[in-house]
């Protein structure tokens, strides 16, 4: 039961995140959305690790790896977005105002 609730919540987060990533124009919002989606994926992994008795350690290890990657990727994306803002003044990916 608990597993189901967590799983549903995880999938909801994931879908919400992907939706935001696609539809939010602002780059920072896109990044936040992406992190929400990652949180959904990680939550699902943790939830599925519980299958009665002792939790399976493998998904936990995977989640740790995933979080490390997610954090560094986010940091990197922020740097790129900031650099791009300095170069062009644009905050959206397909900014029509973007200076050449």
């Amino acid at each position: 039961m608990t597993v189901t609730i967590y799983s549903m919540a995880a999938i909801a987060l994931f879908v919400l995140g992907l939706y935001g990533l696609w539809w939010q124009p602002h780059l920072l919002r896109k990044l936040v959305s992406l992190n929400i989606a990652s949180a959904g994926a990680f939550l699902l992994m943790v939830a599925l690790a519980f299958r009665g008795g002792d939790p399976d350690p493998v998904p936990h290890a995977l989640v740790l790896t995933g979080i490390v990657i997610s954090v560094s990727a986010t940091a990197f994306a922020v740097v790129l977005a900031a650099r791009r803002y300095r170069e062009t003044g644009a905050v959206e990916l397909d900014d029509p105002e973007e200076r050449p």
Partner: protein
Amino acid sequence: MTGWTLGPEAGLVGFPALGAVVLAITAARGRRLVVGLTLAATLVALVMTLTRLLSVGAYEQDIGGWGAPLGIGWRIDGFAVLMLGLSVAVGIAVSIYSLAYFGDEPGDRRRALFFWPLWFFLWSALHGLFLSRDLFNWYVTLELSGLAAVALIALSGRADALTGSLRYLLLALAASLLYLLGVVVLYSATGSLDLAQVAARLTPGPVALAAILLITAGLVVKSALFPAHFWLPSAHASAPSPVSAVLSALVVKGGFYILARTMTGLWPAAVADGVLLGLGWLGGAAVLWGSLLAIRQQHLKLVIAYSTVAQLGYLFMAFPFWMEGVGEQVASRAWAGAAYQAVSHGLAKAALFLAAGVLIHARGRDDLDALRGLGAHLPVTATAMALAGISLMGIPPGAGFLPKWMMMTAAIQEGRILPIVVLITGGLLAVGYLFRIFRRLLAADDVVLAHPPPRILELAALGLAILSIVTGLSSLPILSLLRIGAPEGFAAYLESVP
């Protein structure tokens, strides 16, 4: 297993990684020496891996004695070594090219400072990807190579490059999440991440279907298959030319490689068949759409980048032949064809991007009309482009002819007409977009070169182009390599190789 067990294949991952670290620390001092040593060591590792493969057959290797799911388990077979061979060949040419490509201007020096560690890091991650045999390690190597690639695209710091790299980064991360989610679903259903174990425990049903859709969707975005190709042209065209070469020749092949591995034996036929057919359709659409867009581009690197979209389509056109009920002869032909296409496209496309880099360097701009009359000034580069072009057009003796031939014979044996129509139309369209380049090179216009390019740039491009022709004439050794450890049900065609 206990203790350290390291085979020669570890060098393929280790030496580039070591090179990356050393170059990050030492910066520009002794760069040539470090690069040279790294290239030589990686090449030796490849040769030793190949030797070992030839003597013992396909083998598995758990790094440090830790197997799946938490450790790193490698499988070395013909397909892996073939892709590694492609990667090493392209990598060596690109590295030699890059030593001369980044010049002495302050901007160039700064870029070189970042380029070398990132590139060797990417190289190492790719080799890890080709060697891995479990789903989670593929996730990790995909992410590592993806992040390095994004950084390399952004290297120039120009606005278009930053936009291209950001779009690529966001999509790549989303794609990885889809993949990761699929892997999690698989793990919860089977309790394993190892390909063989998952395959043994997976039963058809909604869980398997969800997993295959998630994993495939993620990999489709990663390998820029139509209609998820839209990130590729801006990213590949705005990167520095040696980076474009690596991205188009190697990085997009990562997604294909994992798909090809998972689609040959991981999934129950009941869920896989529809996906395989869908991938085939998308591949065919990619060939036509990518080629048509390539014909409409006005910039050299965009033409080549859209050509990549088209050429990747051929890889996926092989997938429907792996459906249940298709004879082993046909399936194995298509499988060998796809692997061959990965190699032939990699060599030719890398040569084309490197040559494009020479032309753009020489002229200082990259619109197509800037190429007019350049052939007379840079005959070696023009020759490299012509040879690579022959391969991309699928005209013998270019290497691109062989995969098309294998797929067409497979199609005709299955009585499928559509793939043949697409394969031939795709070839003719490739003639269309490539001759837009060639005819300008041959034009009689008098031009003055902005910067005469260093000779070594031209030779690196020519080397790869010649290799792409050599590959077109040496199918038997390559196919017999592919035979070693070919997946079950995909060897019949290769058995006939002497």
